């Protein structure tokens, strides 16, 4: 069996590690976030994860049979399956991750020839396929463990933060803008978060709303792998140190996205300029998961550093537009897909630069 380095378009970039080692390292850094999800949402979360991974492996197997390559052991299918599960809620009907994973492996990946040949991010594409096919099922949020007792899972409470805000605004006008204190107050918050917030205000003299504590640690209804901002950040540190992911795309994405939210976010609700809520947007809707793990897929993103920056900025712009004017939660995913389409064009624009630096 050939150990295959990711198949980039020429020129080929040499990497120190094999594809397999990279994949499994990434998977390892994602485990904490998944474990957290299982802890706060219950065993159903684990079932979703396992089903998704299994379906991805099955899809990859079938794809292998068709393309006569054997890549099951390189971890890419497991990673895609994991990422798909991480973008879904814990209560999602199981046919959703199965279909999403199969679509991702067979249509998006295997049809183009397997690992390294696809232009669309398989996990993100699978998730968006699921969204447009079964959008209702994707709101099956589960109440997190540390919420106050007696909170129901169905509407109106038990909605994800973004959904809650959207449901209380006129045409989603508040979505990116500063949330009113009253609205914030009416959303459940855990006692642990309140305790933490008061500790911070006592010892660090910093007043933060306890809801943000919940959001940061991941104690809200949300996507399995997207809620725990803390654990995702910690996991990614290792990836950055090993240079498995580069800083350009995530930083470009987050900067442009948050800046746009901050500057323009309040406009639709007539709150004026610079009235957006960037921190809220950062901590919800799997933004962090996308920024650290989805945007940095080496196969479907530009080669050069410059290209990565363009890619990140484009994703940020689209994510902002779609989150404010379109489908809130999945906006980042759709933004990534739109930029995937533009990647070859971006590569061509930044190509000259790459050749020059390679020669020097």
């Amino acid at each position, binding site marked *: 069996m050939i150990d295959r380095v990711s198949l980039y378009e020429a020129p080929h970039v040499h990497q120190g590690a094999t594809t397999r080692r990279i994949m499994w390292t990434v998977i390892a850094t994602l485990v904490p976030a998944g474990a957290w999800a299982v802890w706060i949402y219950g065993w159903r979360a684990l079932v979703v994860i396992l089903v998704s991974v299994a379906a991805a492996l099955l899809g990859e197997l079938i794809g292998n049979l068709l393309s006569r390559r054997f890549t099951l052991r390189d971890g890419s299918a497991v990673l895609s399956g994991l990422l798909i599960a991480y973008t879904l809620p814990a209560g999602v*009907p199981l*046919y959703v991750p199965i*279909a999403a994973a199969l679509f991702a492996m067979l249509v998006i990946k295997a049809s183009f020839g397997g690992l390294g040949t696809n232009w669309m991010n398989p996990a993100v594409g699978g998730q968006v*396929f699921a969204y*447009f*096919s*079964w*959008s209702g*099922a994707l709101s099956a949020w589960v109440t997190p463990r540390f919420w106050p007792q007696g909170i129901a899972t169905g509407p109106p409470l038990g909605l994800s933060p973004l959904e809650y805000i959207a449901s209380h605004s006129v045409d989603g006008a508040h979505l990116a803008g500063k949330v009113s204190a009253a609205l914030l107050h009416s959303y459940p918050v855990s006692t642990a978060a309140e305790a933490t917030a008061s500790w911070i205000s006592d010892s660090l003299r910093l007043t933060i709303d306890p809801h943000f504590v919940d959001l940061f640690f991941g104690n809200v209804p949300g996507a399995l792998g997207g809620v725990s901002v803390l654990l995702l950040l910690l996991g990614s540190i290792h990836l950055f140190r090993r240079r498995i992911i580069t800083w350009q795309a995530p930083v470009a994405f987050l900067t442009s996205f948050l800046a746009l939210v901050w500057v323009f976010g309040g406009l639709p609700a007539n709150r004026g300029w610079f009235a957006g809520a960037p921190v809220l947007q950062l901590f919800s809707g799997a933004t962090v998961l996308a920024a650290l793990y989805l945007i940095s897929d080496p196969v479907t993103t530009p080669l050069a550093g410059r290209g990565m920056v363009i890619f990140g900025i484009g994703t940020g712009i689209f994510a902002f537009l779609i989150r404010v004017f379109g489908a809130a939660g999945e906006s980042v995913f759709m933004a990534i897909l739109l930029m995937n389409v533009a990647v070859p064009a971006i590569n061509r624009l930044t190509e000259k630069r790459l050749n020059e630096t390679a020669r020097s």
Partner: protein
Amino acid sequence: MKPRGHKLQESEKDERTGLGTGLWKRNPIVGTALGLCPALAVSYRVDNAIALGAAVFAILLLTAATMMPIGMQVPLRYRFMLQLVVSSALAAVAELLFQAYAPSVASRLGIYVPIIAVNCLVLGGAEHFGSRSTWGGALLQRLIEGLGFFVALLVISVVREVLGSGTITLFRMGTFDGVVHVGALESHPASLFGYAAGALIVLGYLQALAEWVSRARKERGA
């Protein structure tokens, strides 16, 4: 009849296999999706596909039948324009007929009925203005192409509607309300296939399937 052992030329093979080849080779699924793209847009329901497919079939035949005797009288330069006029007139008539006798179908098909006027398949027959003796064969060829188109559109619409809505919507007949429900899929259909995006993907795979089958056949035959 050619003596045995004589190597058949490709064109002779076509004559021999006539109907089979026409339905298979010239079929838009195996061929280049000729003229299918606009029709795809309405293929999210089977009854739409049947209606549009029938319309394309009729217009295809009538355009060919009209152009054959007239075509030769007209200088080459104007032949295409004349064909456009004929196909547009027929499309206008088709739209009127739909609006008069099947208004609900007409409103669903919208602009896709008049667009038959510039359908690649309908307009693609300009080369068949041979001598009178070949008209019959040429017309038969067009008929087969039209049938192929109809079948292709039907297959696509069945796949799309079953996956996308869990139903197969046919026309009302007596007590049958026209809708065939496909069990489990109807409660959780994969709505993506109801969109244009799904249509393109379905067509892509159906073409690949047809290609694969024809390759397998060739290998077996050769």
